[in-house]
């Protein structure tokens, strides 16, 4: 040992900052904690929502303890890579771009987007087959969440639209009401529950079919983890398949929505 003093200092530093050290039994889970109904904190201080249920369900199957860490969306992947937590269970869609940085378990939720705009306006944005008519989007101001899959889809498919980026979904709803954007593209399940069904959203409605192109939106939402942990990834995927097959996933969804939000095929693995 060349540097006994320095080494003991380094070990001391580890002891000081021991909050971050990882044991095999405890998995730290990163999520936004502001993305109702998927992950949010209730007034009682409890974390709740679909993602939280999935995380707890998976942890029970693989026999791990959970520790939740709240992290803003656009720092989610950097925080995972900087080892601030071990898993992302935050409604993150599995996409090829993200896979360059991190690994994903199998999917546990559908990943779709839908446009929301004034309900009474006569938009002619999609043809009968459900494909977007690119020229009719020219000059339209569309609000999107920063670092979301929707942004990539718009850039590739509808470059004529003017994109306005926001942090989080609540500002999207606000500026749609304010008229700063003509429409927004967002998660339809969340928007229905948080916005369209409320008084503030009663003049607005869906102005597109559900868009789910695997190339952009991925096959679904999965659990993110750092690369090189294939054994953990396989355990997570197997646990999700169990949750699908024993009906738990459906049960989690029915707490919030009148329908399930996953594909039963995923359970076959």
């Amino acid at each position: 040992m060349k540097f006994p003093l320095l080494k003991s200092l380094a070990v001391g530093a580890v002891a000081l900052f021991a909050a971050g050290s990882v044991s095999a039994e405890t998995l730290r889970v990163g999520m936004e904690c502001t993305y109702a109904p998927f992950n949010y904190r209730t007034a009682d201080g409890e974390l709740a929502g679909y993602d939280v249920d999935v995380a707890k369900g998976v942890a029970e199957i693989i026999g791990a303890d959970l520790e939740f860490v709240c992290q803003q969306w656009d720092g989610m992947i950097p925080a995972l890579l900087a080892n601030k937590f071990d898993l992302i269970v935050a409604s993150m869609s599995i996409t090829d771009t993200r896979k360059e940085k991190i690994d994903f378990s199998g999917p546990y939720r559908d990943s779709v987007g839908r446009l929301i705009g004034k309900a009474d306006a006569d938009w002619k944005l999609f043809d009968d087959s459900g494909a977007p008519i690119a020229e009719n989007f020219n000059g339209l101001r569309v609000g999107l969440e920063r670092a979301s899959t929707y942004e990539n889809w718009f850039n590739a498919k509808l470059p004529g639209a003017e994109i306005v980026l926001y942090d989080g979904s609540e500002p999207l709803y606000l500026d749609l009401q304010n008229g700063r954007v003509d429409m927004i593209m967002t998660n339809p399940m969340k928007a229905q529950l948080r916005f369209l069904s409320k008084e503030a959203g009663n003049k607005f409605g869906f102005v597109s079919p559900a868009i789910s192109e695997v190339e952009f939106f991925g096959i679904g939402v999965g659990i993110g983890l750092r690369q090189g942990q294939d054994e953990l990834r396989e355990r997570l995927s197997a646990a999700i398949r169990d949750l699908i097959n024993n009906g738990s996933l459906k049960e989690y969804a029915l707490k919030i929505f009148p329908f399930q939000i996953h594909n039963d095929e995923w359970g076959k693995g």
Partner: protein
Amino acid sequence: MDAVTGWWDDYFWGSMIVLQVFFFSLLLMVLFGLIGAAAKLSDNRLAQKIAGAYTVIFRGTPEILVILLLYFGSAITLTAIAQMFDPDIKFIDVPPMWAGTIAIALIVGSYATETFRGAFLGVKPGSIEAARALGMSNLQTFIYIRIPEMWRLALPPFGNHMLSLIKDTALISIIGLNETFFVAKQAIGTTGEPFTMYIVVGCIYLAFSTIITLSVMGMEKFGARTGEGAR
């Protein structure tokens, strides 16, 4: 305001975190400011250069960037350093509370460096000469002459720095610290009432900054009463 019911305790604990960050970053800010000012006023070229680089970098970059870099960068850097000595170490973390506190203190400390430097330069040469004539040592001159004259000069801009400090604490919600602004975002996520929740945050910060403004006013009065004008 019904929506806020049930979130009051979260706002309270959030405010405690704001106060905690404010208190520790205030101490560090004064320390950084004094060291920076001393370095800038010293005869040592290297110290001058380092202090110069410090003020240029931290006054010239967005605060949010410094916070993010310190939070994400520190963990990666510390882990890399520790692994050089012990490859078994998986990960060293800097808790967000300390990353945020140090980041804010570094930023506002760079402004305080300039304030303190100006204030030290404002100490009257006559006072220093008088101290020398009385046979005071350098240290005695510093403690009994420079500091008492300097803090009175530095106080008005220092009040501004304290206000920057308290408001910058709202920025650290981006690294996941559970302070009032983050509480508001969580409450909005659940209740869908952005304006109510943000107004509560505004009122909390207004209360803090009013206390700061009043105490600075009080100290200015005290300084004027006991300073040279009163002699």
